[in-house]
């Protein structure tokens, strides 16, 4: 992903419940992909990290996947 996914799709608020979108930014182990690979702006990368962590807390995403 070269361009910021959230700006391109006009997503202003990254929601922790939107698991399908968040999954795009996880590697097979369930770890958050680095900003180098995601191509997100620093601000959106931080918001993404927060959203993923909230989703993990509520069991929507795994902390570790096999």
């Amino acid at each position, binding site marked *: 992903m070269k361009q910021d996914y959230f700006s391109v799709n006009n*997503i202003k608020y990254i929601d*922790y419940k939107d698991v399908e979108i968040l999954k795009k930014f996880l590697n097979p182990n369930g770890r958050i992909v680095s900003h180098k690979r995601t191509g997100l702006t620093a601000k959106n990368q931080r918001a993404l990290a927060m959203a993923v962590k909230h989703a993990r807390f509520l*069991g929507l995403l795994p902390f570790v996947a096999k």
Partner: protein
Amino acid sequence: MKFMSVSENKGENTAEGRVYELGYLLAPTIKEEEVPAVYGNLKELILSLGGEVISDEMPRMMSLAYTMVKVVTNVRNKFNTAYFGWVKFYMKPEKVLELKAKLDLDPEFVRFLITKTVKENTIAAKRFVRDDMSHRKAPAAKKDKDAGPAPEINKEEIDKEIDAMVAV
């Protein structure tokens, strides 16, 4: 600069208070028929604390990404499934602490999360997924085009090879 307006919205303070979202997991031990009652009680609790519900979603059964443990009356309960639901509401910041204190004591909640949010719908429409799908398919299509002329070259090579074989 687009994003500036979002951060302003986040700190939005109106007469009713701030926009919060409560995401929660209800214990799977609750029967399917009793879930609406629990959900109704939660809404009443929010209203009783001077809150105003903006939007919400009914709790529905889902499998958890990992096993959660909650100790209720000295018994360690393990959960692999739970009812997940959420409510978005206006509330005064000091009242939210009261809400949290009440939910902490409730044995029906496996976990809950209170976050500051914006009043607009934050779940992106499905078309975003499709956009991404088409974007992903695009490079594959290009490869096919590249592969188009390749067999012709191969045919000539094959013909030459066959001629060579025949000659032998």
